[in-house]
């Protein structure tokens, strides 16, 4: 085994300190009894209590969750369709335009996407609210899902699908019994990605939200514009905690699945 040189150890240590220290500090100071940033006045959970009593935040959190669940589900269905079309169907009129449209939202600045959708909704006279945010989020999230799913679709052998078709399965049966189980991990990560993108978005939601549909990032943004707030520290700690638990659970689950697959393959080889 190669030993790491001291230069490399230093850059890893400093690098990860840079990545994690700001968040660690945020978590520590969320338990600070004082309202001031630099003064440590003892351990306290009062900001969490205050947060729980703040109904505006709870309402915003509910709106955000509703938007995120609807967005990720819609975006997963549409994104998987788009990926399937792009990878498996090579010829149809307007394919170049379609490929461009699934790629462009990935690199388009949020402010432009938000502005253009707002102008569309105003032009159509649609009342802005949860629904318009979902439509907007789905539009960019489906493109991310499509990238994730198509990388999996490219990697697997299309002859498996052809074999199923040759053996008399209908295209729908082939998709359900062959394609879907193979791309399932990518579809699930696509869903999770769309979910976090939607939870996280501030700019597009601010453009497309109505007066009664403030999302959590919008609420946080207007609160922190004026400076550091201990309640937001508490809220951030809860969000960081949830994400950490989620990511660790997901990676453990995928590791377990990989181990089981390896065992099954071994058993199949022996049998």
């Amino acid at each position, binding site marked *: *085994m*190669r030993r*790491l040189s001291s*230069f*490399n*150890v230093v*850059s*890893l240590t400093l*690098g*990860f300190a*840079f*990545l*994690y220290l*700001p*968040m660690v*500090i945020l978590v520590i100071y969320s338990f600070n009894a004082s309202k001031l*940033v630099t003064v440590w006045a003892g351990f306290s959970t009062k900001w969490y209590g205050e947060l729980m009593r703040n109904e505006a935040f709870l309402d915003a959190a509910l709106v955000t969750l509703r938007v995120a669940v609807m967005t990720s589900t819609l975006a997963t269905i*549409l994104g998987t*369709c*788009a990926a399937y*079309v792009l990878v498996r*169907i090579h010829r*149809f009129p307007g394919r170049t*335009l*379609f490929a461009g*449209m699934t790629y*462009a939202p990935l*690199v*388009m*600045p*949020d*402010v*432009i996407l938000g*502005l*253009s*959708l707002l*102008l*569309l909704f105003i*032009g159509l006279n649609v009342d802005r609210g949860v629904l318009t945010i979902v*439509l907007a989020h*789905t*539009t960019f999230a*489906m493109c991310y899902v499509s990238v994730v799913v198509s990388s999996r679709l490219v990697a697997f052998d299309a002859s498996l699908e052809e074999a199923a078709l040759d053996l008399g399965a209908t295209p*729908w049966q082939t998709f359900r019994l062959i394609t879907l189980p193979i791309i399932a991990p990518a579809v699930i990560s696509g869903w999770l990605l769309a979910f*976090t993108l939607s*939870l*996280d978005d*501030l700019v597009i939601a601010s453009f497309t939200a109505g007066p009664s549909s403030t999302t959590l*990032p919008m609420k*946080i*943004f207007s609160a*922190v*514009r004026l400076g*550091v707030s201990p309640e937001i*520290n508490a809220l*951030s700690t809860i*969000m*960081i905690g949830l*994400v950490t638990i989620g*990511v660790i659970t997901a990676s453990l689950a995928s590791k377990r699945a990989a181990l089981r697959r390896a065992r099954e393959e071994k058993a199949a080889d022996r049998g």
Partner: protein
Amino acid sequence: MRRLILIAIPYLWLFCLFLVPFLIVVKISLSDTALARPPYFPQLDLTLGWQGIRDFFAELDFENFVFLTTDSLYWKAYLSSLKIALISTLLTLLVGFPIAYAMARAPEEWRPTLMMLVILPFWTSFLIRVYSWMGILSQNGLLNAFLLWLGVISEPLTILNTDIAVYIGITYTYLPFMILPVYAALEKLDGSLLEAAEDLGCSRTSAFWLVTVPLSKQGVIAGCFLVFIPAMGEFVIPSLLGGSQTLMIGKVLYEEFFSNRDWPVASAVAVVLLLILIVPIMLFQRNQQKQQEAEE
């Protein structure tokens, strides 16, 4: 038939909710500001038939784009966004390269964990990651308290609400975008090439510049574009960490639309921003294609 439906659903979705809205932005950028609801003129009136369409096109002009060049606020904002995005990209590369390099040199069994540690911040809220720096950089923040305690400075530095805070914010939030492609390129690098260079009399440093750097070039280029392109249109970081003098075009667009309610000018700002970004986006695409071809 089924195939047609499969194509039509995502196609129509993107057509109606991505392409059409974008065309509306282009159209409004060519219209005039008006004190009306909606606040621009002309409106396309299809009830008049051909005559209406002809009148509509006759009314369109490039006035708003001319306005962008005459009012110094806008071109200053474009130039300053360009400057901030370039400097931040460079800083991200300077911070990210050594980390990616060390990750690629680390023992193989550590690498999945290191990768997860780089990706984990991606899943936490972007807004919170930017916000976390407000308490660190402010006048009575932790960094100043720490430096004062060390005795390095005698009075607190003003970092928050300056361009420096924006550089730090962009470097911090986009760092994983730089590390991942650079790491991917460095990991593939064959260690025996470096040994060969050293055996042939190359010093460690020159082996790094002559072997490692050229072979990781594509990863570096990809990382730089992945940071530069979104940094150009950034809105959250300059609004939270930047000051009133920090001009970035994303912020100008947002304010033009919501505070001044000047839709045609906001649309023209958006169109020009996209025109500026098309060049790096195309270059990025070409770089990715080259990389793919090299792998095949």
